[in-house]
């Protein structure tokens, strides 16, 4: 019944091969097998959003997917956001603007917002609120998360503008 399936996947940019039972949830695979414990589990029925990861670039609930479905696909977790030891601008903005309290929901918010900001580089407050309406936070009341997102968007635009500018002049 519970035979193992070999999967080849890519987690945070690194190829991973593993053998998993069919019923293993992707969230449990990430947390227990890969020990990437930044992906949090809050409800296991897709409501709280704490376990959100990127699956081929799209935000997805890892508690509503099977590990075996990672075969041949790319996964990014909160541990994959920083690059070369530098936090992602969104992570920096969450720090600066107190976009977190207990921190348990934070990875889910970040993984929801990273693709959102890629699609909406200059969002207004209402759009941000709509984008995070599927992630529950019981501590902040959301305002600081919205503020952090708007700050990150601005900083990412400025950075992109600076890069474009330098290219234009070179």
């Amino acid at each position, binding site marked *: 019944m519970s035979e193992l399936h070999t999967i080849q996947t890519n987690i945070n940019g690194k190829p991973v091969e593993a053998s998993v039972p069919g019923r293993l949830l992707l969230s449990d695979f990430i*947390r227990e097998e890969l*020990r*990437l*414990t*930044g*992906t*949090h*589990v*809050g*409800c*296991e*029925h897709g*409501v*709280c959003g*704490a376990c959100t990861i990127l699956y081929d670039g799209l935000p997805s609930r890892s508690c509503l997917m099977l590990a075996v479905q990672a075969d041949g696909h790319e996964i990014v*977790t*909160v*541990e994959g*956001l*920083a690059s070369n030891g530098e*936090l992602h601008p969104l*992570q920096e903005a*969450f*720090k*600066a603007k*107190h976009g*977190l*309290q*207990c*921190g*348990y*929901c*934070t*990875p889910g918010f*970040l993984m929801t917002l990273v693709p959102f900001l890629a699609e909406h580089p200059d969002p207004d407050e209402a759009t*941000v*609120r*709509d984008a*995070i*309406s*599927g*992630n*529950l*936070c*019981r*501590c*902040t*009341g*959301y*305002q*600081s*998360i*919205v503020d952090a997102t708007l700050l990150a968007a601005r900083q990412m635009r400025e950075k992109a503008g600076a890069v474009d500018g330098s290219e234009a002049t070179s």
Partner: protein
Amino acid sequence: MTVQERGAYRVIGQGIPRLDAADKVSGKAEYADDFHVPDTWYGAVVRAPVACGKLKSLSRDPAFDWSQVAVVTPEDIPGNNIVDMMGRDMPFIAHDEIQYLGEPLALVAAPSLHVAKQAAAHFKVDVEERPALLTLQEMVAVYKEDPAKLHKLSGQTIRKGDAASALKDADIVLEREYTAGHQEQLYIEPQGMVAIPERDGTMFIHGSMQCPYYINPELCETLDIPPEKLRVKQSAVGGAFGGKEEFPTLIAGYCALLALKTKRPIKMIYDRNQDILYSTKRHPSWSHYRVGVMKDGTIRAIECDFVLDGGAYTTLSPVVMYRGILHAAMGYRCENVSIDGHVYRTNTFPNGAFRGFGAPQALWAWESLIDELAAACGMTPDAFRLKNCLHEGDVTPTGGLLRDSVGSPEVLEKTLERCQFAEKWQQCSRGKSGERLWYGIGLSFFAHGSGFTGDGEARMKSKVALDLETRADGTPIVNVRVSSTEMGQGTGTILPQVAADALGIDVTHVDYPMPDTFKVPDSGPTVASRTAMVVGSTIYSAGQKMKADLESFVSETLFDGQPTELVENQFRAEYDNRSIPFVEGAAAYLASHGPFRVYDQFKLPDYVKWDQENFVGDAYPAYAWGCNVAEVEVDTLTCEFRVTKVTAFFDIGRILNPVLAMGQVQGGLIQALGYAMMEKLAIKAGKYDADRMQTYVIPTSVDGPEMDLHFVEYPWDHCQPGAKGVGEAPMDGLAPAIANALEAASGVRLRDLPLTPERLFEELSRSQRLTA
């Protein structure tokens, strides 16, 4: 003694980022479920199938493979089968009487969670079922008939003047009843704990909790081990709100009992379903008032029954009820007060701590009633409150004198002005027919007692320590050693800020390691909005002591005995202007003396007097003050309503970190919005009907109103820096403000929480105000 002016502080009052932010945004913070301990087994609970009954027998299914399963029954408990909380009436594992559905009958552990759960499902339970008392409504019905028919868990009265005769003199007497239902804390991280039996006989408890020094000593009697053999350490906590105050003792006990039996580490992480079904909730309440007022709006007499549904066992219910009755007539002048507080048993999981701790229930009723009283006198809600609100020098319902740091009436006046209450009050729809939308504005005003109720702080005598130690990289660091926990609210940032300020150094030289009872003194539980005020001020004085000692060391060893001051990270000699950095002086101290610990202890001022038996005197050393105004819009056809704007002022004393404090207010108000309008638990067949996040609905990012939030600062004069606590006050007043606004909009008053479109629809149908 008077606290310093705000400008005298360097680090206090700065909105610095949280010290734990980097770990939390990168996924590195370690929560209970993140620990990987080799050879861990997983625990599960065998639960009672009925809400009330007598256990006749418990047996195991012989067909199941028990070879890989450890079982703990009451006979396996080394000490007394009792949870050492108030009342001492709750067994760890039920062995005779069953008082709630799901009460533990046995514990099991296995190498995998799957096997543990299967094992738990393979017990045969034989019970003699008895009729259960399940809901507040059933309980109140019995109470009205004959309170003696209920099982009383606690009672307390407040008496001031002669309310009974004063009621007879009043021009108008209003009698009203209000109820509030359960509220689930719904921290996003479910309850979780690990117990590790160490070789030397120490039991190491590590997990999600608010109060390490509850678990030790509460487990010592059960496990029959001395306190020095029970080590409790907090992991990162994913939200608590009171839900991880007393409950963790239970799950820690389950783990520890299984760890004793198996001699292995045991982990238990509740899933959301278990967490909602088998953990504490905010107590449902019934408030019954008879209040007499004179035509000019003077409050002549207040009589109140404040009754809480305690659930199955006593646990913390008496103290929740105390805070309730202490707030049930607070805020306004009245010479004649008579309050009876009661807690009765129902057959549900014991209700417990939740942000506000009785005050939100009491204030829900009291602040709704204030609007009804104003209307009865022909006054507006703002005028009635301005006339009656307590000022400095006034006396509380228990006869306590408001000596100093009284943010009333300023918070009230400022809020009214800021939101233009008087003008908007005139524009309210009051159920006018033919309109598509109704508009209403509503107000609440309240005090929230800071710190423990009554003589709690005097008995607690919070102890704190500061350690000057050497970091792994060789540099000196000051570690804050307290049992006060970081659970999101910011303890791990504000206490280092306070220590840094007292020492005259930057916060980069101060750290807050997670509390571990083998390393920290007992600064008390992280509850009651007491950490900033009580623990913060004690840290401040410990910091001042450490500063003086370091100064005299540097003076003698490096500055030839010149008077020396540590200020802005520099030891400065008074006469020759020599200075050295803090790290240099501290390193010299460490090289010469080794690690250096300074202790301090909180002491209430002598003038704070409290008679615990009669509830007379200063119920709290100080109060936070708040005023909330809610504006609502009602869809007159669907009865849906939304809060469009909240304006609020809070006096929380000295603000230690304004951004963190504002985060507490924003988050608390949204949680209060959920309590007021969304969060609902009914009981079906003994079980909460909303037992998952899909059905227990809390506010999301699109449910909140526009918020206009402000502070005023009336620092508590007794000690530096004069904080009065901010955790709970934001939970207190929004529900009645919304109910008041809804009445102003629709013309009907809702007296039961939560306030839902469906309830409004029912009331409007009854009063035939519906447009259809």
